[in-house]
């Protein structure tokens, strides 16, 4: 089987390599990637797809996400890591 047979494979701008749509749907610990809409809107109606397949609250969260600045998320990750180490 080749990727030519699977139209739902594209280059992931975050990873830099080809990924299947199924990866984008689940990569954030079983949650969709925050960039899923930006990556797939050129291929099919991803917004309607997500509306149909996600619980309403999760769909709303994804669509209205306000991503954090890198430094903010880094400080959060540091604190979480220190907490894990303390535990």
């Amino acid at each position, binding site marked *: *089987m*080749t*990727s*030519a*047979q*699977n*139209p*739902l*494979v*594209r*280059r*992931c*701008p*975050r*990873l*830099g*390599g*080809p*990924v299947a*749509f199924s*990866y984008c749907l689940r*990569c*954030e*610990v079983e949650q969709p990637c*925050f*960039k899923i*809409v*930006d*990556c*797939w*809107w*050129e*291929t*099919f*109606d*991803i917004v*309607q*797809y997500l509306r149909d397949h996600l619980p309403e609250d999760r769909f*709303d969260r994804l*669509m*209205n996400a*306000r*991503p*954090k*600045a*890198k*430094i*903010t998320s*880094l*400080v*959060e*990750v*540091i*604190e*979480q*890591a*220190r907490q*894990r*180490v303390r*535990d």
Partner: protein
Amino acid sequence: MERKKVLLSEDEMPRQWYNVLADIKMNPPLGPDGKPVSPDMLAPVFPMNIIEQEVSSQRWIDIPEEVLGILAIWRPSPLIRATALEKALGTPARIYYKYEGVSPPGSHKPNTAVPQAYYNKKFGIQRLTTETGAGQWGSALAFACAQFGLECKVFMVRISFDQKPYRKTMMQTWGASCVASPSMETKAGRDILAKTPDTPGSLGIAISEAVEAAVSDSSGKTRYSLGSVLNHVMLHQTIIGLEAKKQLEKIGEYPDVVVGCAGGGSNFAGLAFPFVYDKINGKKIDIHPVEPAACPTLTKGPFAYDHGDTAGYTPLLAMHSLGHTFVPPPMHAGGLRYHGMAPTVSQLAVEGLLEPKAYGQIDTFEAGLLLARTEGVIPAPETNHALACVVDLARKAKEEGKQKVILFNWSGHGLIDLGSYEKYLAGQIKDFEFPAKDIEEAEKILQQYPKPQILKCR
């Protein structure tokens, strides 16, 4: 023979980086509590000499001799005139590019990996950790650590780890330890694997692992290294644009347009920021960060303006949703809303010093193939975004009969990242296998959710 390359000698390498923070006003980065991030909050992962650079507003910062000595392995990088591309397009534009693929790992990334390794070593650090997706950054840091005798631990997202064995081999060849993330080496990794043993991983998980590996070293001799977005990374990359200015000066040229692809912003910033400095000081020049075309509809509301991140660094965006029918507002293109974008790049766009452009993936690969078949080098897939813009500008110059000087950053070669080309050229080369259920699902999705019609406002 027409001149193809402009070279500088090692003596002509810039001795200082340009810090754009001296010339723009930025909101302070905010921590999770909404208060400005203080240096001590970053101290568990970065040495203080790097934190000082991160917050410095000094315009010119000296490049240490030890760093220049390592950079000299491949720097100054050549400035090349894309004569074959010009000919193929029949454009009157003169097109130049800085070729960063000449570095040992094949990209611009070691321009910051080397100074970061140096400053860590100077601070007494013995081991660096990081995460990597495609492996470009991981291999750059592995190379830099080898030069300074530091240990290097790279958490590579599992899906990429499996797809790109040669990146892993590069890192190991330079003495780094590269493990698939999630791994059993951190609590973050073990927790994820306990829940989902077959997970392909993600960048978020890999970052958590790399940070945990740094903060859990009770000896205090381990730190974490990041290859994009942050201010000190942009600073280190400016050597690209500073060299380019000298090279163009040698041949009596100055660009009308500067172009770079903008993912995290570092290769764009590296070329563009020294020209932004000129623009701030009165030069007339167009500067384009190029990003993937983003979805024009994100909210359920009739029309919404929003900042792309909590701190409001990114430009105001109009976001519009009409269900099945997309209506991209004119200001949509090139919003730079991706939260991974460098805040300095976003701020310059807000101030009108940059004009972002966006291109779809088909345009970018077409441009990549055109460059590969004319100039000869297979571009790194992310470089293709810049190339799409360059091709577009060169065609416009032809239509308008203008002899524009276009400068762009060829951020790396694509020889170890051919998977995306493989996909583009699908049918000719075999790719990795996908489960049959994925194929069926894909067919169903495409039938049930056809691409919506894109309507233009004007």
